[in-house]
């Protein structure tokens, strides 16, 4: 007899002793909060949306007037700042829409593979959103640096006297700091999602391997 069939015969008879729950025990369970990865993913995405909206638009407004004037000077034109903020809102709308749609498509009654795919798709939407913000931060930093050098008269005077080598060094340092900043954030995300989705990724790979 097949080993597994021996277990099957006992399994079918519910031979394994389990503590049986009464309906009184079950009712309170319905009120408990889920701690599934979909829920965690959802909270993380909300935090990310809020964080970047805050960092991109609200934060500069909260800063002191002199600072915003400085930013206006840096960008050379207050209009640029406004365009950046408003385009930020336009970008966030489709992201929220896609995020909502992909959350809606996650269904626990789908087959295992499809469920995993819907979750990974949702994670991808969040990933693109973060990537977009990283690119934006990078570009903004470079533009700000450019305007700071060309429009800030004090700095221009100082740089006029400096050797080309020094200017290149300055540019290189600014570039490295920005790249380092983006890298740290990237690492943080790798770690965060790596831990959260480790099991899911492993199981998904295992299912995909079966199809080869």
């Amino acid at each position, binding site marked *: 007899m097949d080993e597994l069939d*021996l277990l099957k015969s006992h399994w079918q008879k519910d*031979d394994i002793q389990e503590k049986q729950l*009464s309906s009184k025990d079950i009712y309170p369970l319905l009120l408990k909060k889920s701690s599934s990865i979909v829920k965690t993913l959802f909270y993380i995405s909300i935090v990310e949306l809020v964080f970047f909206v805050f960092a991109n638009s609200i934060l500069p407004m909260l800063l002191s007037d002199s600072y915003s004037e400085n930013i206006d000077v840096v960008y050379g034109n207050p209009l640029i700042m406004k365009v950046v903020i408003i385009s930020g809102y336009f970008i966030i709308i489709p992201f929220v829409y896609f995020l909502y749609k992909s959350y809606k498509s996650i269904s626990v009654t789908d087959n*295992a593979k499809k469920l995993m795919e819907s979750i990974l798709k949702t994670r991808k939407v969040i990933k693109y959103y973060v990537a977009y913000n990283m690119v934006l931060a990078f570009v903004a930093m470079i533009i700000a640096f450019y305007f700071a050098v060309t429009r800030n008269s004090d700095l221009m005077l100082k740089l006029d006297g400096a050797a080309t080598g020094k200017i290149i060094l300055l540019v290189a340092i600014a570039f490295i700091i920005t790249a380092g900043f983006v890298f740290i954030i990237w690492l943080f995300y790798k770690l965060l999602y790596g831990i959260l989705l480790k099991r899911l990724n492993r199981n998904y790979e295992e299912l995909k391997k079966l199809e080869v």
Partner: protein
Amino acid sequence: MNKELEHNFVELLEKNQNIVHKVCRLYTNNYDAHNDLFQEITIQLWKAYPKFRGDSKFSTWMYRVGLNTAITLYRKSKRSINTQQFDAVQFKISAEEYDDTEEQQLKLLYKAVHQLNDIEKALVFLYLEDKNYREISETLGISEVNARVKMNRVKTKLRTILNP
């Protein structure tokens, strides 16, 4: 209406709770984790219940939600790390058919199943529940042929674990 829905659900779950217990048995190895997973599966079942149309059996629907929760949605709780592991699983074998070697064999077999990975456990679970390969393939989202091939590999793997 809501009360009625809740009442029906609890009644069905109470009657079919062994399915959930069995999933928990396979995927956890201590009491706290078992209870945690049981709770998460119950929540997922309850959340999905309003969409349950009754065109499949409640138990069949439970297999899917239960396994999906165990394989994909469940996050191992922190508190389960330090708690005591299960002793060997207890089988209620009736006195007249009691056979010491058989019980030993069952326990070893059960231990071997525990060493399989999540997907392999899901296959074994559905096999033990006497599901055919069409149902297994539909639950996991793989083809029927691949389900069959994988099941044979799992059986070989179990044999290797049992007779190294």
